[in-house]
């Protein structure tokens, strides 16, 4: 196994999952199980390639991806908050709408339902090789990563500060903990939920942009390949807290990257490909078990009061 390139590969696999996980985490704190991250990622990835193709400008493509994902998140907000649809049903609907409308555009506008692959596509900024060579381990891990990957790392403390150190973050959490109490305290809970979805859109947009723009420079239908749902699992595993969610994402990224490298050792591919999902099942079981052991005494005191 190549131990020199492993940390970088782990980080690269972690980034889309981490962003998806943070996207799901923000809404989870407002008591929304966001299953639409996958669809938002796809829309962002497609928009990034489509806009980059037309403008030839990586920053426009990047910005458009974020805007598109935010728009999708606000469609979800309108359906659920304004018209009272169930979050999971509406979220799954958004996923179907996203992949369906992308396919429609691919066929009608680009005449190529198989995907969108511009001949040339602007590259985004990557940390140049050698820029951090004086830092052991972390230096080579970060070199060559896209600016989106660096933003993803910064998003962990940023979401922590937002949730725990700002009034808006506190209101958002209050909305998630007990909506009726929050409303009676004067918090506009629907606005908080819409804000949570908007932030989720930004993060999912980053995830989709990273997927399409980092290396591949093309769009394929279903190219997110379940990363939005793995991210959701990481959030649940991390119990909705930023650091634990990041750690869970890192674990999935680690198992993914190690699994890829284990294939060189003639292990059955099915077993190796199973590793990240096995980790997800074990992780979620552990998270539930921990929540139930922790939750019980609190529930008892609550009933007594």
């Amino acid at each position, binding site marked *: 196994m*190549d131990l020199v*390139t492993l940390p970088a*590969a782990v980080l*690269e*696999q972690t980034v*889309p999952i981490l962003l998806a996980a943070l996207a799901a985490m923000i809404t989870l704190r407002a008591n929304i199980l966001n299953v639409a991250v996958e669809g938002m990622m796809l829309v962002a990835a497609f928009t990034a390639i489509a806009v980059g193709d037309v403008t030839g400008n990586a920053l426009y493509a990047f910005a458009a991806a974020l805007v598109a994902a935010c728009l999708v998140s606000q469609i979800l907000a309108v359906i659920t908050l304004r018209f009272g649809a169930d979050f999971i049903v509406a979220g799954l609907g958004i996923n179907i709408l996203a992949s369906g409308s992308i396919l429609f555009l691919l*066929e009608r506008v680009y*005449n*190529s*339902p*198989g*995907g969108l*692959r511009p001949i040339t596509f602007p590259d985004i900024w990557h940390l140049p090789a050698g820029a951090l060579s004086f830092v052991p381990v972390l230096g080579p891990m970060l070199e060559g990563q896209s600016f989106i990957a660096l933003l993803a790392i910064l998003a962990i403390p940023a979401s922590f500060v937002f949730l725990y150190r700002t009034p808006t973050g506190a209101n958002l959490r209050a909305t998630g903990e007990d909506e009726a109490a929050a409303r009676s305290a004067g918090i506009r809970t629907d606005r908080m939920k819409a804000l949570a979805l908007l932030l989720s859109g930004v993060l999912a947009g980053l995830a989709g942009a990273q*997927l399409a723009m980092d*290396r*591949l*420079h*093309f769009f*394929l*239908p*279903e*190219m997110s*390949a379940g990363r939005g749902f793995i991210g959701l699992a990481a959030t649940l595993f991390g119990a909705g807290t930023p650091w634990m969610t990041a750690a869970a994402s890192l674990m999935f990224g680690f198992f*993914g*990257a190690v699994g*890829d*490298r284990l*294939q*060189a050792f003639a292990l059955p*591919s*099915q077993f190796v*490909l199973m590793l990240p999902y096995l980790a997800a099942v074990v992780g979620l079981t552990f998270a539930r078990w921990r929540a139930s052991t922790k939750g019980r005494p609190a529930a008892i005191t609550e009933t007594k009061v």
Partner: protein
Amino acid sequence: MTTSLSRRLVLSLAAAGLALSPIAASAQEEFSTVYVMSDNLGDHGFNDSAAEGFNRAKEEGAKVRLLQASPSDPQLWRQNLEAVSNAGTYNVIFTGPNMHDNLAAVAPQHPEQKYVFFDDELAQPNVLSVKYAQNEGSYLAGTLAALAASDKASFPLSSGAKKVAVVAGMDLPIIQDFIMGFKQGAESAVPGTEVQVIFIGSFNDAQKAYDLTRTAISNGADVVYNVAGPAGLGILKAAADQNKYAIGVDSNQNDLHPKNVLASMLKQIGNSIYDSIKQVKSGTAPFGTLVIYGLKNDGVGLVLNDAIVPASAKAKVDEARAGVASGSVTVASAFAAK
């Protein structure tokens, strides 16, 4: 050298003759055919290749209808197949992937109607099954890959370490057929060539394909064979970014990364359809049997990127092709064990 050159000449003359031979222009009046699809045109691969075969037949006077259908609407596929079967006005009905169960239900009800079923197999007296020998095409891909990985002088991006890789979508029988042919080709061209086999676990996850290809290259592979459908674009991109070689699949992918993609392995769906229509017209189509299109009858082939494949390697690939086509070399198949 001269022998291989003259063989090449003979081969290319034969190919030219095949393409130019005047086709019975006086075909029966109003020969009509229909293709019941489970997908849409415009995929730059399988379906478009099929359509091209139908168009060639159309130019020669056949009436052709292509019934497209949404890939997510299986009921429509069945309805279309039943409708054209009941109509009874088509000399032959073509259908392809995903249609096995539908055809198995419909074909016995219309014993007088003739069907051609391609890329799959159904044993019915009125059905001609057509399959493609991807193992033979992959044999040529393996030959070329091994040559490139061992010959640093002719292939400047190579390290000469005799290591190649297959990055494949999923571990399915048809994919194993690709892999077996590739391995055999590599071993026969340059004995001792090491072939890494890596699975993505998906045909859509291009990012994972990219990462796995990079892993294969960092493990020393000089040439990576794409057997991953749509996700394969990630394989080609990774090979280009790492400045190594790749071999494409399904459609001609040579111009996607002209400095890195050595060749593409194609199933010539169009050729086989055109041939089948000709056979049905002339009444020689062997209904009730399975016909395999391989190197011998141009059902599969390796399209070389002449700008980066030198003539010496091309000659060796042609030699391998001739060996398989003549039957002196038998390529192992994942389906042979049945």
